[in-house]
């Protein structure tokens, strides 16, 4: 090849590369991942008018760790959901304060827990180490709880992962406590094992009492703890991702019953009698369920959200398609249980 032809060939290659990269950038800008548009006032409006709604994340995980939030009416089912101007991987909300686990932007290649208000404006950002898994806000919005995978990426392989559960003071946006540092008792024995992992926090109405999963020695337990006391005690065995009913009497959770390929059966535990009720859902569900009311629970399955009766009767039904991480906001003063 002569020098002139080489130059021509290079100019052609350069043109191809410029055009190709340009198209790729334009396509990327077009697809986007952040919330585009969406209402900024719908959540505050629902809160003010006490209109019962369910807040959830749209899309599925294949779109990345985040999805645009949406608000669907519970009073008038079937009305189209309202898209909100905020994107999160996991979301939880209580009147006044929400927790949004999302990918950090810019130079940081990690995740952050964002505390947002009814106006969907982020008030505090807290960088977190690990991959977000569960988020819950206490009913009065005082504390948030975040579970992250530090190693491993799935709850399915027992003993193959470790988690880190942090309580966040929602007012200051700072870390309030780490469950791994709590004093844990089982019966009258103090647990001191190094391999203690906590995940899936659920708060009682007083925001001090909470329930969570404790894994140690290859077994999982339900613990009941006190945020102020920095203590927790074991209540029951084989409980993962507990969720306290609005009336505070029952815990819905994942009970490990099957092989590693389909390990869990959704079950409800009566805290007064410790009686277990398996739900009618036969598929293995990996989600921290959300109570729709005192009779029904919601849970994510295959990128959609289903509903099942909490007393084990009936058949599960589709609640809405395309989404996850539902938070039920009834705004009602729930029956005090504590």
């Amino acid at each position, binding site marked *: 090849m002569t020098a002139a032809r080489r130059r021509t060939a*290079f100019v052609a290659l350069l043109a*191809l590369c410029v055009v*190709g990269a340009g198209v*790729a950038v334009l396509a990327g800008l077009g697809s986007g*991942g952040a919330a585009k548009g969406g209402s900024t006032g719908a959540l505050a409006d629902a809160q003010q008018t006490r209109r019962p709604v369910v807040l959830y994340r749209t899309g599925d995980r294949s779109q990345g760790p985040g999805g645009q939030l949406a608000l669907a009416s519970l009073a008038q089912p079937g009305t189209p959901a309202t898209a909100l101007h905020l994107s999160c991987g996991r979301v939880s909300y209580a009147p006044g304060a929400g927790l949004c686990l999302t990918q950090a932007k810019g*130079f940081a290649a990690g995740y952050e827990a964002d505390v947002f208000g009814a106006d969907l404006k982020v008030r505090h950002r807290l960088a977190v*180490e690990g991959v977000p898994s569960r988020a819950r806000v206490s009913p009065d919005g005082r504390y948030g709880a975040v579970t992250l995978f530090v190693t491993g990426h799935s709850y399915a392989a027992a003993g193959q992962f470790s988690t880190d559960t942090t309580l966040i003071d929602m007012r200051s946006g700072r870390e309030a406590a780490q469950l791994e540092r709590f004093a844990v008792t089982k019966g009258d024995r103090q647990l001191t094992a190094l391999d203690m992992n906590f995940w899936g926090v659920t708060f009682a109405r007083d925001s001090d009492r909470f329930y969570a999963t404790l894994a140690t020695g290859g077994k999982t337990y339900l613990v009941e703890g006190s945020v102020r006391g920095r203590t927790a005690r074991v209540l029951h065995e084989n409980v993962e991702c507990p969720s306290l009913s609005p009336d505070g009497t029952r815990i819905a959770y994942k009970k490990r019953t099957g092989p590693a390929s389909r390990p869990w059966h959704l079950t409800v535990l009566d805290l007064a009698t410790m009686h277990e009720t398996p739900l009618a859902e036969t598929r293995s569900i990996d989600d921290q369920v959300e109570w729709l009311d005192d009779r029904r629970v919601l849970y994510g399955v295959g990128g959609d959200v289903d509903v099942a009766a909490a007393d084990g009767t009936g058949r599960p039904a589709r609640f809405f398609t395309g989404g996850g991480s539902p938070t039920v906001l009834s705004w009602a003063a729930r029956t005090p249980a504590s």
Partner: protein
Amino acid sequence: MYQVSDSKALLRGHRRLLAARSTPAGGRVSRTVVLLGLTSLITDISSEMVVTVLPLYLVAIGGFSPLAFGFIDGLYNGATALMGLASGMIGDRFRRHKETAATGYGISAVCKLLLAVVGTGVSAIGAVVLLDRAGKGIRTAPRDAMISLATPRDQLGMAFGVHRAMDTTGAVLGPLLAFALLAAAPLAFHTVFLVSFFLALLGVGVLVLFVEQRGPVAGAQAPERPPALSGAFALLRLPRYRALMCAGAALSLATASDAFVFLALQKELDLGTSLFPLLFVASSGTYMLLAVPAGRLADRFGRGRVFLAGYALLLGVYLAVLSPLGGWLLLVVALGLLGAYYAATDGVLMALGSTVVPEEVRGSGLALLGTATSIARLVASVAFGALWTLWTLNGAFIAFGAALVVATALAGFLLVRAPEPAA
């Protein structure tokens, strides 16, 4: 594609710099070296932008754990070293350094395109990343052989300095470009992969279309038959080569990887993990600026001396970490010394190697040298991690500091006893 015009401006800058400083004796690096530098610059933008976002992509989309990724990454680096040895030999045997290097660059380019289309399956991505590393392993030794073969002996230090400066420029620009793209279009990983692919393609284009390979020993002096593969290992019988390899390996065994230095700085100064990439940018930026001056110093005052002085700078890094220095001062001193250490050792080692390896086995000789030092560095990393776990971070630095003093003394002894021949 502003980065391409950027790199061209940079290239012009380099040329002006070199022209301005060129000595009457003709101390200007050859066109081949500049073109190989440009290839590396473009390719490094391409590969570093992917390297930067890959962990994020795998963890965010693919469901990898960061720890698992780190482990796989380590294994792949080992495979890269062995691949380099093979490609160095092939380049020598068929006297086709350019074609061998182009194959390596080409494989890596194709991998960027594959990343954009294979989806997020763990095994598929793993295979593509392995292939990409193989490409990197293949291209390094023949490229360094071409740089050394295109450069007069007394300018080797500067030639490698110019190449490494350009290479590092790409390594600094790549992550910046990747994050700029992700900031503009969050989660648009495919855009990053595709832009990376087109850049890689351009890099291959520069190499294939413009770089001319000068054969080993031009013209009639060429040996009648190509060297046998065993020729590369016969190198080990050369006392000077053996001395250099032992010196390089001993020093590498006492080298704490940058990751540990960065971690120590992060711990000491309580920096957020988000600042981690900036530490890399700061030390690489210093490396970039000092690579050419260090190469010139090496040519003038002796490559062995500058090489050993580089390890004295590394000792300075350890001492800075251990010292009561804190705040910005510690950051500036430690990162500056780290960058200067790289400038004085990385390219200079290859320049040193080029003076002792006969031309017909230049590729294998440099590859073997590179492989020995990178394996020693891998061992050092494991040892450092173990010392840190069993002892303390400061304890590990003290132990490595002591080892470095011993290794530098040993290397000095070896290099003095077997000095590089006069030009």
